[in-house]
């Protein structure tokens, strides 16, 4: 499953509507992001280790404290422009909002078959203008060293790796349908029954 932050659900799935000139309409969204990222401050991540390898972090032994396994650090600064550090409003007032994409934890799941899976956002359907997106971290990848997940008991301080997307050319006052897929071997996004498997779809409308 893939989820989105901020997540505002309407009648039919995720609907993120706001007005740039009315900060009441987007403050809530920004707060959601800020709160969500509070689990990714260096302080919150202090129990996790710095990982550098670009391969799966396979642990057969319990090397962590209290017979646990180690988890890799993911801090919000890795999201650069969407970290909320440089821009505490996550681009919402400018009409270039940041969204955070996250994959659901699945125990012992090894996504991508050795290649880091990445996020790819597009308009749903045929849009003449391509969607301009900035991905953070670069290329919008989930580094392989966050996988596999060994479960709550083995990795009590594990945090999901995140990818932030910043939409740059959103047409104002139009409801746009956007889908962000996770591209990677072993990740399917064509389950007709499950709209949140391997992708997240949402409607975005920015008014001014």
């Amino acid at each position, binding site marked *: 499953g893939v989820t989105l932050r901020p997540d505002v659900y309407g009648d039919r799935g995720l609907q993120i509507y706001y007005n740039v000139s009315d900060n009441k309409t987007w403050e809530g969204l920004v707060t959601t992001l800020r709160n969500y990222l509070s689990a990714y401050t260096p302080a919150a991540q202090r129990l996790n280790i710095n990982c550098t390898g670009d391969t799966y972090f396979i642990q057969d032994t319990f090397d962590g404290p209290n017979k646990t396994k180690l988890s890799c650090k993911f801090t919000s600064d890795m999201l650069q422009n969407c970290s909320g550090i440089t821009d505490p409003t996550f681009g919402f007032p400018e009409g270039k909002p940041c969204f955070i994409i996250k994959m659901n934890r699945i125990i012992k799941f090894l996504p991508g078959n050795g290649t880091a899976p990445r996020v790819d956002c597009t308009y749903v359907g045929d849009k003449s203008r391509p969607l301009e997106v900035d991905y953070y971290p670069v290329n919008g990848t989930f580094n392989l060293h966050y996988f596999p997940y060994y479960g*709550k*008991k083995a990795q009590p301080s594990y945090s999901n790796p995140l990818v932030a997307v910043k939409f740059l050319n959103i047409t104002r006052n139009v409801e746009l349908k956007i889908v962000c897929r996770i591209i990677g071997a072993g990740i399917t996004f064509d389950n007709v029954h*499950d709209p949140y498997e391997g992708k997240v779809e949402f409607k975005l409308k920015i008014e001014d």
Partner: protein
Amino acid sequence: IQDDHKLSTSELEEKYGTSIDKGLSSSRAAEILARDGPNSLTPPKATPEIVKLLKQMVGGFSILLWIGAVFSWISFGIQLAQGAESPFDNLYLGVVLALVVILTGIFAYYQEAKSTNIMASFSKMIPQHALVIRDAEKKELPADQLVVGDIVEIKGGDRIPADIRLIFTQGCKVDNSSLTGESEPQSRSCDFTHENPLETRNIAFYSTTCVEGTATGIVINTGDRTVIGRIASLASGVGNEKTPIAIEIEHFVYLVAGVAISIGVLFFIISVSLRYKILDSIIFLIGIIVANVPEGLLATVTVSLSLTAKRMAKKNCLVKNLEAVETLGSTSIICSDKTGTLTQNRMTVAHLWFDNQIYSADTSEDQTTQPFDQSSPTWTALSKIVTLCNRAEFRPGQENLPIMKRVVVGDASETALLKFAEVILGDVMNIRARNKKVAEIPFNSTNKFQLSIHETDDTDDKRFLLVMKGAPERILERCSTIMINGKEEPLDSEKAEAFQTAYMELGGMGERVLGFCHLYLPENEFPDTYPFDTDSMNFPTSNLCFVGLLSMIDPPRSTVPDAVSKCRSAGIKVIMVTGDHPITAKAIAKSVGIISATSETVEDIAKRLNIPVEQVDRREATAAVVNGMELKDMTLQQLDDILCNHSEIVFARTSPQQKLVIVEGCQRQGAVVAVTGDGVNDSPALKKADIGIAMGIAGSDAAKNAADMVLLDDNFASIVTGVEEGRLIFDNLKKTIAYTLTKNIAELCPFLIYIIASIPMPIGTITILFIDLGTDIIPSVALAYEKAESDIMNRRPRNKKKDRLVNEQLAVYSYLQIGIMQSVGAFVTYFTVYAEQGFLPSTLLGVRVNWENNAINDFEDSYGQEWTKYQRTYLQWTGYTAFFVSITIQQVADLIIRKTRRNSIFQQGLFRNKVIWVGIFSQIGIALILTYGLGHVTALNFTPLRFQYWFVAVPFAILIWVYDEVRKLFIRRYPGSWWDKNMYY
């Protein structure tokens, strides 16, 4: 009331505008026909087919399902308005419930229509014709074209086509049994003999038969205005009682409804206090009520009943009304006809007396020889008289038929004698040809004898042989000698005494006795050419030689005594109701065991003790023979006394109306009464009875219409089969219902716990339907094939008030014991599946709101994994499938334990009922198909379950079996104990 019998011929001609010689004119007849309508009985107002069909779809069980359907739709409406997630489940549920009722209704309708068709094929006899004089010509017309004033001619063998005032008769006798039940033919003449038109001799009634002779008469009543027509219309005034099984099912419906509403209301209160929204609580309430409806049971019960009906039809009991299948099983009194039902409906020679000795003849249905000693020369002489002094003849062209089955032209006694002679001597016609008849005086009521004179086939003996038969005392009067061992001996008082004793003895057995005598006419007085003149009787008719007596009776069917004794051991009282004479009735009753060998009537006791009848203590007499005349003067109280105090009762000389009174009397005792009958006159009693049984062969259409069941072979013994089948189906329906109710709890508990503990829904509506209308159907029908646990024909009929189909014990045991065990087993599977997939039981409690929230797509489980909404739903379906599978597995155990209610399974045998195994395999097969075959069809909410989950409930299945074996063991060990009273259902 008409006075046509008092009018003279010319008055009649005038009254009806007809002429005896010319009859009506065709045009006049057509006018009257247009005015009066055809001469046929209006069939009882036939219920339109569509009404019959609709009737199958309401009442009893169906009501329960309809209520369920309506509730489901209400629920659907509310949910749709609320915008709930899957409101269509309730719509489908309602549709399925309605479909079940409609399809079952159509099935039941079809079954009953089939029986009706079989009957219709019986009644479509050759259309009747009547010989009518019209336009001064004799014409053969269909009988229904007759009109008042028509002149008709009748001869022996014809059915009387309308009520007829006779104006010319010759030796005419009619059999009024279809009207009065009296089997003795009655003579008819043109004379006005009685004020009462029913008693006078000069009227012949519609539907009776002319046995012999000829007659001409004027039609005075046609169609429904005939006497029989008026009796037939009586039947439509008699209300139809509810069948016992219908009452039982109603009781069951109340019980289920009671349980459903109490649980529903209880949980409504609980859910309101748990702060569910009122509307949600109402949905829960409806859901609980609907969940209690056993969807499959209506179909199962109907199929089981029709299976039994089919089985009974094979044994010659055709059931018109499916519910009547069971009625015979609860029957406690059978009021049976005598003639044709208990007896073979044909006179047969039963005893002979010659050489001072009584011989018994074989009276069975298929006799081919007679075993009594035939070596005496007296027998040779007697057989000659029997053969020659007889006018009856076989219809030609029946040489290949067994003798007893051949059709004979002649009256009942002569027929009996003819067949008797044919069996012993062979070709009677040939013997008669060789002994040429030279003179004959037929029987008449003044002489009371029949005489003929023959040449003999003995070429050395030129003497003529005079043979005579008739009423024994009249014959004896004409004799001066008696033949003993072939020798003529003088008839002294001692020998006359022996004759009297034998005559009394045979008469006392209710038999019709005939005496036989002969005389060889001296050759010198009666040479070859002697002109015998029957008018002047120029030959001796006295000082004859008495040869012997033959007595005849309509003998009981050979299967009847056994059947009666079976009824007796089954606690069913058999009462004989007949129009016949008390003596004959009593004799037959004794010979079939309706009056047992040791019991006595008041009259018997009086005779034995040699005291007047009034002094006899009536309580001492177990048997009673009640005459119709006595019955007429009895108060209801007196009748009740008789029915109560005597275990063996014969009603003789009863009229059709009295039959109704007797049936009502029996019903007042709280008995379930079965009545057999064949005549139109029986139809009121047939209708009044709890189960009316009409005769298929001899029965009239009116009787068959009024009856619930038709005996295709007219044989009383078939009723016993019916009783057995009826009792068996009652027992087996208990088992079926117990089986079906059990899993209702396992289907209901999930919903209740869902409400209280807010866990993800353990089983879905559609899944439940697949159990109730899928896996469980064949097994529950299979229980209908279960053999009886003990001899069901050795116990008393069930007590209508106490032995309910569904009693408290059955409900408690099924719902609260096995049902709860099953629920636990299923929940263990459910929790196992969820735990293995990531949700430990503790995380499931109270999770409902978030679980069902579409906006949560990273729902965390006990291991830290995250689930989208669909993944959770899929897991929920897996849970449904697991729940379904474990109910199925445990239902296999439930099925096995339900085979018996008291005996161990090992006593009953696991493999005797093969259909149970068909049931088990079908159950598992359907479950496999649903799980693995249709597991990918999302709409059905099944998922391909991991194979190991099939086995989680197995220990519980074993537990159910062991638990029930223990229950049965204690019941057998400690009869009458607390355990027996509370655990036996």
